[in-house]
């Protein structure tokens, strides 16, 4: 099922999957802590202000990009397990890859259009 002429990415995929996972765990814990010690005040103004600090927006974007790349690795793995026809799998990978690239651009737009 694997094209042996192309370079394989087994180890780097494995390592990136874990690096992005750890990034997400750390962000999730920090987010939970911030919710407890520095809860956003009610309404749009409070919520918007909560997202204004550059450090928070940068960390949130890093989290979302880590999540999206993690999802990409997972999608590839699931397709490899269940879709054995290489042409169909390549097409599905392209579609899901484009969706995830769209998600990544959208995430950056959401967080950077705030400033």
């Amino acid at each position: 099922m694997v094209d042996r002429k192309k370079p394989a990415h087994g180890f780097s995929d494995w390592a990136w999957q874990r690096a992005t996972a750890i990034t997400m765990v750390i962000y999730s814990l920090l987010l939970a802590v911030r919710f407890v010690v520095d809860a956003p005040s009610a309404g749009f103004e409070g919520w918007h202000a909560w997202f204004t600090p550059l450090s928070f927006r940068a960390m949130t974007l890093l989290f979302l990009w880590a999540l999206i790349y993690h999802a990409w690795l997972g999608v590839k793995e699931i397709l490899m397990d269940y879709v054995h026809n290489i042409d169909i799998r390549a097409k599905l990978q392209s579609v899901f890859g484009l969706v995830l690239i769209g998600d990544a651009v959208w995430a950056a737009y959401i967080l950077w259009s705030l400033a």
Partner: protein
Amino acid sequence: MASQYPKAPKRNRPKNLNLLTIRLPIPALVSIMHRVSGAFLFMLLPLLLWVLHQSLANAEAYQLAQAVLHHPLAKLICLAVTWAYLHHACAGIRHLALDAHYGLRLNYARATSRAVLIISGLLTLRMGIWLW
């Protein structure tokens, strides 16, 4: 040249691929739930980005997002997403421990699988109480 090794005897092993009667060992259950929750989160990601976008764009969009999130069905989806995220995270942390060769023995593997189910369940319950 024929193989120098004797042929393995043909065995009629029982096959049971009926998904309704297979009883999964608990680590296998956590494993397949890890995959299902990951696929589910991938599918719901655009929806979550939409909510984030609306909530931050302007006051009217914020109110729209708020109204959508107050719908009982939306709350149910939020709870499902929360559970999927927490289960995936807990099962993932367990995976990292296994990578480091912690908890490989069968009784530990079973105990940590049960812990993943219980901890993610309790955290989801906590979030559910907060949501409602």
